[in-house]
């Protein structure tokens, strides 16, 4: 293989570039990224990055979340084409076409284009934000440092909860609105989702559940509009929340399907993300909520693999940091081998930091699994948190902890070992 193009210059793309070199690929390596920034880490965006000192200069902010440094960049010997979006993949000659018309001929392609925050329909309003990338986070942060605000976070998932927690820490009045009867129930099951829901009230935010948002209402022109919007935000065109806030009407309230409404100065829309597969339309690659791959991250074309949030690997699309860092090793191995020689089934794992609590989850929980508390108690979270396991037919399927990193890690390792034993038995 002489030339490989990695599309997407974030977590999974960078790890793929590293793996290509680590596994001996000596050819031409090109990494294309739509954002103008060098690869940075997203998890801090809803956590420390939002709460950090507001007057810190930009370079320092970005430095702290940088995923790489000049030495490594030199070692990787890759050509970085940043601020350029791939527009198409021509599978016949495996050419990646950029939006400025450039074409990159490649023998192998790694799809690592991640996902984009889902938005609410309706006209753009100032004060409405999503939180997916650095520019989003800067724009939100700028707004949050302008004095106390009534913040409404739409969506009680992990990013919504973390954002709410950060807003409380900054002294804002915060309400989290969730359409489902209970946030995170699909991920954690009712019992432990209830514990997470309890964190909001304990932490000083209101949680409204079972309320669907009908629309956002705006009026007047935003005070200080434009001051906060990050530069470099132009690329998004008519995107909400970051399109030059110049003369947009400001958001005033969130209106619910049942007719009620809630006054708001800032609205954060945290209703999930959709995989960035649009550029693959017409490429013959199969796409269905993610790029369809086998267990080894390989698409139907052996010269194209997909990794990270954009990839549906063996039927599962994970939006977790750890999947995005673990899949590239296997994907690159299979890409260089020209066929799937190894499966990537990392044990699902994620963490979240909210209201001073660190939450960790690992494993494959299914509905109907029973929850058993092994250590501590969900009732007295202040006294060292707790560790719980999910069980099915006497077997541990997953683990969940609040503030119990050490025993959690032990169970996580056992789950991983159990899984690799199971894999060996199958083979």
């Amino acid at each position: 293989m002489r030339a490989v193009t990695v599309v997407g210059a974030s977590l999974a793309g960078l790890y793929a570039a590293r793996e290509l070199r680590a596994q001996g690929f000596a050819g031409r390596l090109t990494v294309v990224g739509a954002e103008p920034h060098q690869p940075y880490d997203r998890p801090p965006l809803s956590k420390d990055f939002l709460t950090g000192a507001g007057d810190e200069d930009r370079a320092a902010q970005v430095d702290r979340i940088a995923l790489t440094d000049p030495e490594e960049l030199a070692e990787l010997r890759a050509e970085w084409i940043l601020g350029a979006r791939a527009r198409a993949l021509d599978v016949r000659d495996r050419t990646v076409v950029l939006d400025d018309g450039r074409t990159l001929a490649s023998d192998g392609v790694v799809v690592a284009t991640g996902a984009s925050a889902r938005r609410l329909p309706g006209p753009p309003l100032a004060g409405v934000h999503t939180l997916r990338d650095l520019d989003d986070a800067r724009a939100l942060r700028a707004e949050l440092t302008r004095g106390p605000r009534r913040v409404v976070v739409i969506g009680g998932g992990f990013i919504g909860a973390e954002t709410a927690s950060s807003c409380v820490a900054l002294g804002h009045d915060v309400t989290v609105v969730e359409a489902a009867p209970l946030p995170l129930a699909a991920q954690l099951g009712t019992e432990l989702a209830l514990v997470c829901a309890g964190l909001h009230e304990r932490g000083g935010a209101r949680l409204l559940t079972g309320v669907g948002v009908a629309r956002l209402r705006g009026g007047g022109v935003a005070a200080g509009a434009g001051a906060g919007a990050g530069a470099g935000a132009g690329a998004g065109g008519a995107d909400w929340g970051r399109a030059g806030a110049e003369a947009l009407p400001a958001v005033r309230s969130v209106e619910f399907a049942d007719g009620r409404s809630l006054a708001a100065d800032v609205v954060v829309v945290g209703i999930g993300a959709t995989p960035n597969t649009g550029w693959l339309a017409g490429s013959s690659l199969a796409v269905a909520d993610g790029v369809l791959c086998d267990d080894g991250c390989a698409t139907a074309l052996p010269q194209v693999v997909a990794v990270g949030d954009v990839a549906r690997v063996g039927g599962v699309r994970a939006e977790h940091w750890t999947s995005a860092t673990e899949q590239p090793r296997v994907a690159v191995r299979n890409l260089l081998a020209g066929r799937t020689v190894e499966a990537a089934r990392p044990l699902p794992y994620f963490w979240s930091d909210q209201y001073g609590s660190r939450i960790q989850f690992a494993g494959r929980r299914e509905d109907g699994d029973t929850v058993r508390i092994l250590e501590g108690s969900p009732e007295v979270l202040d006294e060292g948190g707790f560790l719980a396991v999910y069980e099915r037919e006497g077997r541990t399927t997953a683990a969940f902890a609040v503030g119990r990193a050490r025993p959690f890690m032990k169970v996580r390792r056992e789950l991983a070992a159990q899984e690799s034993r199971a894999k060996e038995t199958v083979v």
Partner: protein
Amino acid sequence: MIPVCRLADLPAGESVRLDTTPPVAVFNADGELFAVDDTCSHQDASLSEGWLEGCLVECPLHAASFDLRTGRPTCLPARKPVRTHEVHVADGMIHVRLAADVAATGEGSAA
């Protein structure tokens, strides 16, 4: 020198965290004692809560691994070392001497 605990109270495979600024983690790795900065150089996790295996400790948050002898990470996502500190045992008590450059930004690895 900062007193840590009695040697007898830190059996092999165990660790203890000192509330110094910055906090320090002391490990008993199969009978050999090591002290390093407790906060992982990657983000914000306590290495004293990590997984100890030989001279390596694995971070409980994103699984970076550090060599306790040098403080150097042996795998990603950590890229920077953690500082190492001297450990002494006298009269059955463990003590730690913090690396001199606590406040400095430099290459902190004494030991």
